[in-house]
């Protein structure tokens, strides 16, 4: 009675040959997870919405160039991640230092901001207080399950850099999430 469920690859192929419902079905299938990636990386709802829209348009038009070297879902996720990274880079005016550097004075929540926080934050809000490069690494590795090597390739940095960013981000999150209280004598300097 009901039509067989088409795979992601079948939907994308159908889209390429003109099936106007196929891409909408593909997006419907993955949009929740894609939104999660965007909103976690960018934190800003508007920015995430713009990034998701850009990414879906990009995927829609780039579909004929999909070569099945990865799963369709992975391909879509990567397009969204790249759109988010582009937005971060384009928004550098918001920051005082270049993004994706590993210098000692990366932008981040100030100590005053930290101390003014409630006892603990939700994950989403705590992530927002990390420097962008650390947040990106933590989101992709710890929340989205990307291998470190893949994150390194996406961000175009060494794997060690991704690991370092994860380490510093996790240490900071331990405080922000309320699992470790900072005091002046026990300051986590990440």
């Amino acid at each position, binding site marked *: 009675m009901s039509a067989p469920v088409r795979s992601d690859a079948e939907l994308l192929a159908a*889209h*390429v040959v*003109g099936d*106007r*419902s196929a*891409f*909408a*079905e593909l*997006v*419907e299938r993955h*949009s*929740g*997870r894609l*939104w*999660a990636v965007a*909103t*976690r990386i960018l934190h800003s*709802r*508007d920015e*995430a*919405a*713009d990034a*998701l*829209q*850009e990414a*879906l*348009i990009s995927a*829609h*038009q*780039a*579909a*004929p160039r999909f070569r099945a070297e990865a799963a369709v879902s992975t391909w879509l996720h990567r397009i969204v991640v790249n759109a988010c990274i582009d937005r971060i880079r384009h928004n550098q005016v918001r920051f005082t230092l270049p993004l994706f550097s590993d210098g000692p004075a990366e932008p981040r929540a100030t100590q005053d901001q930290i101390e003014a926080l409630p006892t603990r934050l939700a*994950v*989403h809000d705590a992530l927002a207080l990390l420097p962008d490069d650390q947040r990106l690494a*933590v989101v992709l590795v*710890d*929340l989205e399950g990307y291998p470190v090597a893949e994150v390194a390739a996406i961000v175009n940095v060494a794997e*060690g850099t991704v*690991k*370092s960013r*994860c*380490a*510093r981000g*996790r*240490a900071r*999150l*331990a*405080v922000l*999430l309320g*699992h*470790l209280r900072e005091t002046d004598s*026990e*300051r*986590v*300097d*990440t």
Partner: protein
Amino acid sequence: MTGPQPHPVELLAQLDADVLGPIAAARARRQLATDPRTAAARTAMAATRAELAAAPIPDLPLDVAARCAAALAELPPPSTPAPAAAAPRWRSRTAALLAAAAVLAGAVALGLGWLQRSDPPAVPGSPAQLALTRDTLASAVGDGLDRRDLGPLNDPQQLAACQRTAGLPAQPPLGGREVLLDGRPGVLLVLPTGVVGRFRLVVVVPECGTTQTNPALADVVAGR
């Protein structure tokens, strides 16, 4: 190089992420073995990793789904190069607002692909009242989203009164139109449910908001 010792949570995070070389790792482990803060730091790191892994997945907002689908619906087929002048349209927030206004294409296409069905869309000049039955009401999502011509309920005060009387949420409908439900005049209101691709379709009498009698003729949820 003789600064204060790093906090154990930093060392644990570095060891956990495999950042340190063998010598630095051995030094970190020696410090951890003697640092009285290590136990608390170890517990904190474990709790942090667990909380990150269990972080809830945020829901895709209906308006974001709608504007994305509206933007996609404007695109030419992927094999056809888009006109150069059209490319940046979706970048602007103004365009995004326009896309949101096209919530028909958005919510429907991203929801269940109703946009792609073969039925011709409503066009200007077609009869204002769409003939429906209770059995076909659930399939009228696209027709409802396609318009926002609520007849007498275009009056915001009457619409608000109607929503109160009918016990509907006070938020504006996503769309709606005048209908004939089983031959009886009514106004179809398409309301969000908070779930992408799922809509509440309510048909109320045209005088809804002007009387205290139950104005609802039908109330169904459509979509997934």
